[in-house]
Structures are given as structure tokens and as C-alpha cells.
């Protein structure tokens, strides 16, 4: 029963020294980056557990996190630089790799980069994976130093949240939203899985969500499929795919026009609902200050929003100001919502009208409008309800409004960033007490509307910039609400570049672990876009499907071989929301890199040095890490990424808390205060429920686009949110009777984990992970049974195949497939052929994308054909 490995005993006997250490670090099996302790014995990692000292994960890990050992020791990991010897590139084409020396690889790449930079630096596109989110700064620093505007994540972000991040940023000053699990009593989930082993603050949320459910929090889950979040719900509300805004707006109508239950004080003080709107849909602005005006009921005259108590601001009525007829934004909101009757909601969503009314009523009643609660001696508003949304609901053509409509529910009842309500992840921080660094708080723009206190990049989500003639390959300059973009791999990218007179084309792809041919949409389109590059360099841990297009491959370090000073900062990304602790853990090397692996961030430094941009790189790092004083990097020195991390840590935590301190202690933490967590009540900012800028943005975008022959549908740029159909809802071809959609499986992270043998084994045993979920009654009507091999075809002829799994837990019109499965890379034998490659059903073009934020629509209307009976 001796649990000590044999080799440990031998080593102790022969050398007298035992290597037996638990190393504090951070997981990287998904972007949540939960804190870990890795057990190393004689150089071998034999166990990974959660770090109980940390607020990030709270000492517990999901199935993916504990399985990291298998990714680390996978014999298919890349160990040496390689070059392709087969000039032909294509999906499934053998690159005929030849191992080369680091010198040859670096010389080749540096030479090409130098020439490219002299020619036109814009021709470089830097792509990175979202699963090294924690190290998103090195690629951005390299982008800035090199001088290209072109960098993106995961091939353009199909699996990311253009809408979710935009709205969470504008409305909550955070990357995402979550119920305040400690106090919430009624949470409505719209296509989100917070608390169910996925996403931001994943493991912490699992604990907190379970506590909340055990405490009695009702969880109403709106989802076509009751596999994960739905499985743990108090009530599962099956919905037609892609119609979440239809439900949310019908609920909002019940609140405002049927029940008349909304938080007047909140709307007056914390939103732009009192701002007067003219018949031209714009604010009535003061002629001197240009500030938006409100109607002061106390004096019966108009004044700027900052010149009267919010309690006196009218949100009802019609007024004349400077000869212009105008009404408070709330009047327009109420009228707009009247068109979303519960009956219309039913028509759009298939959810019975009475259910919509009941859920809205339960939400309104539980909101306890007007109540407060005392927490740690501080009185804060108490609204124990939350409506949250994430990937599923906002991954559609109507991305922006789907997300905004859901969040509207929180704001109508005043349940935004107050106790029990819908929280952003840590939008305000009083700073690290010993140094005063890390202090940030949302603040108002001249219109009184919120600018985020912290963000993932230098340009926050609000104010929305002016549209400009596009220069970035994804055309984001023209679409200022877009983060990722369909055009990085779309079938119409060349047409777009020609339309907008691009005087260059991307020629060089520097890929940092992204697998874009699997993560964007149908592989034919992405293959064509990859083949256009003259040169591709890929830093990767496996020779993925995208890396098979590379000319040179650099073997990257895995997370157990990496040191990184900030695995959970910015706090708005993945530190748990709500009361608890501020916590700054690091990631550190648990073992030395195997083979000839080198950390991509260090290789970027080496490449920068060889092409002569070290001073620019150091300046970029100074800016990105916000280094101050003596902690700023010196222009001419080539730093390792760990050295930069040491500067970063000393800069934030003081000279005695550099990398050595963190390597020993793993993290620094300090308690959160109620005024930080529930900052909204203490911060004089408003959020826009009436998106006044939308008409201007549309007009400015059209002014550029229309002369080039691109029409921008105006309905996506209205100041108030609408339900607008996906292309799938407009398909009326015979026999196309399912809405196919993908979901994130509980044991997998995008395409990263399918090569992990333990996770693959778990997924094979799961009834759904690798199969196609179809409603049992509908399936039987079509003569299908579980295990049948079926073909799923979209209206454009794109097809996938897989095994049917009949289930009672899916909407009759839905067809659910776990995302990013169906690998085909030759050097990923565990992942190869497992599951269904859903993305081949996703069309990549302007028509299938959000005209406001360029999100690709994740659903497709499909026809199902039986190919072979169950074995």
C-alpha cells in the first residue's frame, strides 16, 4: 500500500536528494486559468490539484484541469522546429515535415519578417489562441512593435463573444456577466453556462453556483438543449435556436407595460432613460455645453443631465425644448416594447405566452425593487435577480441585440452590479493596499455614460469610435463595434478588400496556437484563406490542422513549462465576481521544457531582436503592462518574458514582491470590500439603454460603404434592441427542418482538449459529446434511432456526418453538436476522427454575420438523411 513511486525511493537512495515538490501555478486547459498545485516527483508531474489558497478555483478543478498531465506528456507534442518540404498546401495534405535547427528556423523567419516589415508591415497577420489568454500581451506587443494593425484571436472569433464582451463592457464595465451567486434568488440563463465547468472563473463559479442552488436560488435556463446548465436548472425553458431577444423583449414588455414593475430611481440615476430624445432620434443637447438634457420636474424646465437631482428627472411625458418636441428615452423604450407582446414572443421563440408572462412576473416580483441590504456594515441596493447570456444566445447574426435585450431585464429592475443582481467581473478595484497600484473604477464620458475602468486592451468598448475606411484585414475600422471578424476567413474577403480598395493583402501569418481552420467556420472557406498566405509560421504544442498549413513550425512550451506574471489579470476577465478576495496568482515552470521547446513569448523577443525592433517591443511592453518608474524596461536590452514578469510584479506589488516571491508563495491576495463589488451604487456613471449613437454610426458607416457597393442593413443599428432573424430562420427549403447549433461540451475546450486521452475517453462515454443530439419524438418520426449514421446538410450543400443520439432533452427543432470535434490532423491520433466537425455547416460571409459586430451566425437550417442503421 506504499503510495511512494518506486523511482522516488531509488533516487533518494542513490543521490541522497529527493525532488518532491508541490508547485503553485495556473491551469491552462481553458482561459479560466484556475490556480493549481502541481506535484513533481523526481522531475515527473504526478498530480495536479487545485490551489486551496487561491480565490481562482478555490482549490478545486474541473475534469479538464485535473487531466492536464495527459496533455503535458502526450507523445505527439512538438519537440523540435520543423519545416515543410511539400510545397502543396491543403486540408489533409501531408506537409512532409523535416526537423530543422532553431538557428535555421529563426534565421528563415527573421529574414522573411525583416523583408516584410521593410515592404509593408500591415501584411503581417498575428493570430493567437484564446486558451493562452493569459499571455495575450506578447502577440499584441509584437504587433505594436512590428507596426501591423492586424492581430486577432482564434481566426476571427466564432467561438468568442463579440456581442457578449461588447455589451458586458458597455453596460457592466467587464468582459462578461454572472449572477451574484452569494445573494441571487432567481437567475435566468440565456445560452450561458456560468457555473457549469466552462468559461470565465469556471471552477469558482461551479462552487458558487452549487452553493446558490443549495441555498434555494431558482435557475431558469433558456436553452434549446438541457445537457449542462439546463440539467441543473429549476426550470428548463426550451427555445427555438437564435431567438433569445424575442423572449427577453417580451419579458421586458411584461415588466414595463403589463406589470409596470421597474426601478424608477435606478432608471433615473444610473441610465440614460431620462435623457430627452428629439424626433430625429438624437439627444436634445445644450447649445453651450453640448451635454444631453433632461426634463427637471421640480422646475418644469429642461437642463443638462448633471444640473439636477436624478430624482427630479422626468422619464415620462412629452416636452418642448428650444422649439423641438422631445420625450425621455424611457417613453420611447416603453412604446418600442409594446410591439413585443407575449403572443409575439411565443411566435418567435415557441415558448408558450403564459410561460413568458409567468417567468417575467417571477423575475419582477423577486427583484424586490427598492430594497436594500447591509453587508459588512455597508448598505447596498438589493435586487436578487439576474438575467445572463453568453456564447449561445449572442452567437447569431442578431448578436448585439440578443445580448442587449437580455441585459435590459437587469437594468429595468435595477439589478445591475448590486447585491443579488447581475454582476460584471470586478469592474472596480480600490487597488493593492500596500502600493495603491491596480486601482481602477468606471468613470463617465462627457455625456455621463460609463467608460470602463479596466479592459483587455487599450481601446475600451465605449465610446464607440467613428467608422473609418477599413485598413485591418477584418474591416473592423469600418465596424467599430466588432472585435473579431468574419472577413479573416470568409469566402467574400477578397471581394471586400477589392470593394474597399485595399492596397495590400495579408501575406504572412504568424500563428500562436490558434487552430483557425477548426475554429471559424466551414473548412473550405478557411482553407482558401490560409492558402493565400505566402508564408505561415506556427507556434504550437501539436501539429494541428492549421499548423499543417505552416511553412515553419516552432515547438511551444506547454503551461507546465511556462512562467507568466499575470495568469488572472485583468480582474474583469476571470477572477470570480462577488464578495471574496482579490487574488493575483502567477503561472510558473513546474518542469523544464522538454525537447527543444521554447516559450513563444521568448521566441518573439528573439525574432524582434533579429529584426531590430527590441526598443519598440520594450516600449510596447511598458505600455501594455503599464510599467512605471524604475520598473520600465530599458530600450535596448533584450529581456526574457520571465524578466518582464519580474518587472511587472515589482511594479504592482513592491520591490520585495518580484518573481522570486511569487514563485515561492504562488499568489498575493487581499479582501474585497462591498463598495468595490457593488460599485454601481457608489459610482456616478450611467449606462445607455437607448443607444443614441447607433444612427450616427450607421450613417457614417454607410457614407463609406455605400459608395463602395456595400449595403448595411439599418435595422441592426436602431437605438433600441429588436429581435431580428438569423439566416436559418429565413430558410424555407423543403425537408430542412432542424436548426443545427453547436455547444461547448463540458469536458472539452474548443479544439484544444480532444487530443487529451483522458478527456477523449470521458467524452466517448458521454451520451452526447461526440454524437448528434436530436429530439426523440421527432427522430422516431423520421425513422431514426440512436446510433444511426446520419448526414446533416445545410442549404448551401455543406455536409457533416455523425451518429444520432435521440434525447428528450432537446427542442424538437434543435440539432445539437459539441463544438470543434472531428479533428483530421495526422499527428493528433487521439483526437482524429472523434465527434462531428460542426463548423462545416457554418457559412462564412457577410450575409451570415452580424452587420453591427461581425459575429458569425452559429446556427444553420439543415436537412437530416439516414446513411446507415445503428451498428
Amino acid at each position: 500500500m506504499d503510495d511512494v513511486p518506486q523511482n522516488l525511493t531509488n533516487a533518494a537512495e542513490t543521490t541522497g536528494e529527493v525532488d518532491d515538490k508541490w508547485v503553485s501555478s495556473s491551469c491552462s486547459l481553458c482561459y479560466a486559468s484556475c490556480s493549481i498545485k502541481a506535484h513533481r516527483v523526481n522531475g515527473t508531474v504526478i498530480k495536479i490539484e487545485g490551489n486551496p489558497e487561491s480565490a481562482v478555483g478555490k482549490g478545486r478543478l474541473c475534469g479538464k484541469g485535473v487531466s492536464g498531465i495527459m496533455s503535458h506528456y502526450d507523445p505527439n507534442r512538438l519537440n523540435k522546429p520543423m519545416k515543410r518540404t511539400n510545397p502543396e498546401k491543403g486540408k489533409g495534405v501531408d506537409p512532409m515535415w523535416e526537423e530543422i535547427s532553431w538557428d535555421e528556423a529563426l534565421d528563415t523567419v527573421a529574414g522573411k519578417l525583416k523583408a516584410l516589415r521593410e515592404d509593408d508591415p500591415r501584411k503581417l497577420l498575428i493570430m493567437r489562441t484564446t486558451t493562452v489568454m493569459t499571455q495575450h500581451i506578447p502577440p499584441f506587443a509584437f504587433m505594436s512593435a512590428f507596426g501591423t494593425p492586424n492581430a486577432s484571436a482564434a481566426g476571427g472569433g466564432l467561438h468568442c463573444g463579440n456581442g457578449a464582451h461588447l455589451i458586458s463592457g458597455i453596460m457592466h464595465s467587464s468582459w462578461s456577466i454572472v449572477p451574484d451567486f452569494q445573494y441571487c434568488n432567481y437567475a435566468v440563463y440565456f445560452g450561458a453556462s456560468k457555473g457549469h465547468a466552462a468559461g470565465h472563473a469556471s471552477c469558482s463559479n461551479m462552487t458558487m453556483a452549487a452553493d446558490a442552488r443549495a441555498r434555494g436560488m431558482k435557475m431558469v435556463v433558456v436553452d434549446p438543449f438541457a445537457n449542462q446548465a439546463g440539467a441543473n436548472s429549476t426550470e428548463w425553458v426550451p427555445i427555438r435556436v437564435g431567438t433569445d431577444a424575442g423572449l427577453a423583449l417580451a419579458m421586458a414588455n411584461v415588466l414595463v407595460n403589463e406589470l409596470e414593475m421597474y426601478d424608477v430611481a435606478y432608471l433615473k440615476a444610473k441610465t440614460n432613460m431620462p435623457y430627452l430624445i428629439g424626433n430625429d432620434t438624437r439627444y436634445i443637447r445644450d447649445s453651450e455645453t453640448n451635454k444631453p438634457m433632461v426634463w427637471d420636474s421640480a422646475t418644469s424646465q429642461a437642463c443638462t443631465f448633471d444640473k439636477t437631482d436624478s430624482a427630479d428627472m422626468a422619464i415620462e411625458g412629452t416636452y418642448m425644448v428650444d422649439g423641438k418636441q422631445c420625450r425621455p428615452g424611457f417613453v420611447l423604450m416603453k412604446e418600442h416594447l409594446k410591439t413585443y407582446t407575449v403572443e409575439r414572443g411565443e411566435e418567435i421563440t415557441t415558448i408558450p405566452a403564459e410561460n413568458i408572462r409567468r417567468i417575467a412576473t417571477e423575475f419582477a416580483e423577486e427583484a424586490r425593487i427598492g430594497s436594500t441590504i447591509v453587508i459588512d456594515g455597508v448598505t447596498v441596493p438589493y435586487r436578487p435577480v439576474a438575467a445572463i447570456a453568453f456564447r449561445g444566445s449572442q452567437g447569431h447574426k442578431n448578436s448585439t441585440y440578443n445580448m442587449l435585450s437580455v441585459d435590459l431585464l437587469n437594468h429595468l429592475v435595477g439589478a445591475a452590479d448590486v447585491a443579488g443582481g447581475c454582476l460584471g467581473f470586478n469592474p472596480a478595484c480600490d487597488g493593492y493596499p500596500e502600493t495603491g497600484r491596480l486601482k481602477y473604477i468606471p468613470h463617465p464620458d462627457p455625456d455621463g455614460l460609463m467608460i470602463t475602468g479596466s479592459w483587455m486592451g487599450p481601446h475600451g468598448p465605449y465610446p464607440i469610435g467613428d467608422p473609418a475606411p477599413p485598413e485591418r484585414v477584418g474591416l473592423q475600422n469600418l465596424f467599430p463595434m466588432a472585435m473579431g471578424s468574419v472577413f479573416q476567413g470568409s469566402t467574400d474577403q477578397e471581394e471586400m478588400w477589392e470593394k474597399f480598395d485595399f492596397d495590400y493583402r495579408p501575406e504572412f501569418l504568424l500563428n500562436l496556437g490558434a487552430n483557425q481552420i477548426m475554429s471559424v467556420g466551414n473548412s473550405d472557406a478557411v482553407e482558401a484563406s490560409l492558402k493565400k498566405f505566402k508564408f505561415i509560421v506556427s507556434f504550437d504544442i501539436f501539429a494541428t490542422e492549421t499548423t499543417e498549413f505552416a511553412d515553419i513550425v516552432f515547438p511551444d512550451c506547454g503551461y507546465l513549462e511556462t512562467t507568466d506574471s499575470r495568469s488572472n489579470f485583468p480582474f474583469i476577465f476571470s477572477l470570480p465576481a462577488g464578495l471574496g478576495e482579490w487574488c493575483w496568482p502567477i503561472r510558473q515552470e513546474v518542469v523544464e521544457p522538454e525537447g527543444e521547446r521554447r516559450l513563444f513569448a521568448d521566441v518573439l523577443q528573439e525574432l524582434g531582436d533579429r529584426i531590430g525592433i527590441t526598443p519598440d517591443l520594450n516600449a510596447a511592453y511598458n505600455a501594455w503592462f503599464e510599467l512605471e518608474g524604475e520598473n520600465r524596461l530599458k530600450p535596448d536590452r533584450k529581456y526574457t518574458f520571465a524578466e518582464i514578469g519580474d518587472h511587472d510584479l515589482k511594479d504592482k506589488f513592491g520591490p520585495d514582491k518580484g518573481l522570486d516571491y511569487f514563485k515561492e508563495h504562488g499568489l498575493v491576495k487581499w479582501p474585497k470590500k462591498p463598495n468595490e463589488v457593488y460599485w454601481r451604487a457608489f459610482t456616478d456613471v450611467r449606462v445607455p439603454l437607448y443607444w443614441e449613437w447607433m444612427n450616427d454610426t450607421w450613417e457614417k458607416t454607410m457614407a463609406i460603404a455605400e459608395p463602395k457597393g456595400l449595403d448595411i442593413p439599418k435595422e441592426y443599428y436602431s437605438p433600441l434592441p429588436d429581435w431580428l432573424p438569423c439566416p436559418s430562420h429565413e430558410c424555407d427549403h423543403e425537408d430542412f427542418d432542424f436548426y443545427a447549433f453547436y455547444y461547448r461540451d463540458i469536458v472539452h475546450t474548443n479544439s484544444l482538449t480532444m487530443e487529451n486521452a483522458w478527456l477523449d475517453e470521458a467524452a466517448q462515454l458521454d451520451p452526447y459529446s461526440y454524437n448528434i443530439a436530436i429530439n426523440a419524438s421527432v427522430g422516431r418520426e423520421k425513422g431514426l434511432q440512436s446510433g444511426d449514421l446520419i448526414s446533416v446538410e445545410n442549404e448551401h450543400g455543406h455536409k457533416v456526418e455523425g451518429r444520432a443520439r435521440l434525447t428528450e432533452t432537446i427542442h424538437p427543432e434543435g440539432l445539437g453538436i459539441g463544438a470543434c470535434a472531428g479533428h483530421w490532423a495526422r499527428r493528433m491520433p487521439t483526437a482524429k476522427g472523434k465527434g462531428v466537425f460542426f463548423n462545416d455547416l457554418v457559412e462564412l460571409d457577410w450575409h451570415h454575420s452580424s452587420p453591427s459586430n461581425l459575429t458569425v451566425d452559429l446556427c444553420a437550417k439543415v436537412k437530416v438523411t439516414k446513411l446507415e442503421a445503428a451498428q
Partner: protein
Amino acid sequence: MRWGMVIDLKRCIGCYGCQLSCKAENGTPPGVFFARVHKQEEGQYPTAQTTFLPVLCNHCDDPPCVDVCPTGASFVWEDDGIVDIDADKCVGCRSCMMACPYSQRFLNDDPQNYYGDQGATPYEQARVERHQTGVVMKCNFCRDRVRNGQDPACVENCPTIARYFGDLDNPNSEVSRLIRERSGFPLHPEKGTNPNVYYLPA
């Protein structure tokens, strides 16, 4: 002293954290799961629900697997009630596997590593190769951890805190209290095995 476990089905979300942390702790070969999660469904659309049932050895008071073992390899630790296997005495006859009403015993005769012909990883060399092949293996409540004062790996790791471990002989222990207060139930009580793993209703 009688170690027992309580699994709260209201908290479990079927994340497979127990199944996989068990694998990491015990280095079990492919196809062997001392802990597993069964995902099932109940009811009919639209009121159907997915349910999760985490399973492991029930460490029964009256374990049929021990009764049938011809060599004495399967035994109960007298001091704590844990049902265990002495691999040196096991001849791999599988009688215990047939006797266990919960299918929680595994013959270690399949491949020993996950990457097939590519060989054992350093982790597998350190952790999987400790297990004898040709013998039966199962959960022993992480007895080495427990004797060190720790909880079993699946309990300590569970991200939803759905698993509790303690002394069922002590009426004041958390596990005894949970079973009492929340109507804890074992699986297949009709088999007369008197299991020491209990479930709290969802």
C-alpha cells in the same frame, strides 16, 4: 470507525471532475474507473431532465465480493471498514466482479497506457505501472490519503462540493447528519449489501 461517503445530487453538475481526479490520483489504466459519472435522462420533452449519477465502490458492510473471493484477496480493513484488494493474493478469477451488484470492480488486463504503441508516458511509468496486471482493482476510498488525514481525491477536488467523507459510526459526523437530515439513500438497498455510499436527493 466506518468510513462512508455522501454524494449530494442537488449540487452535482456532471462535470466529470471526480472521474478524472480519481484517474489522476490512482493512475488507472484505460477503461478502468474507480469513480465514474453516469449521465442519464428522465421524463419526456418538454419537462425532461438530464441527471447525473456519480458511482464508485460502495464499501458495503456485507460485501458479496469479499464473500465470494476464493483466495482472501478481497477483504475489509477491520479498523475502518474499507473494502480493499490485496493484489498479491488476487488470481484474477473475476468472481468478485460477478458478485458486485454495482459493477465497481475491474480486471486489469487491458492496455496499460493511453497512447498505445507510442509507449508509457513518464506519468504512466510513475503511476500506472505500480498496478499489478491480471488482477482485479477498485476504489479503496484513497486509503493512503485518508490515513494521511486527507479526504479521498474525488472528495477533495469536487468543484461543486457535492461529495462528503466521514465516519458513519459517529452519529455527529457531517456525513451521518446529512444522511439523517436530507434523507440520504444508498443504491440498491434490496441487495442487502449495506453500502456505505449514500446519495442526497436532487
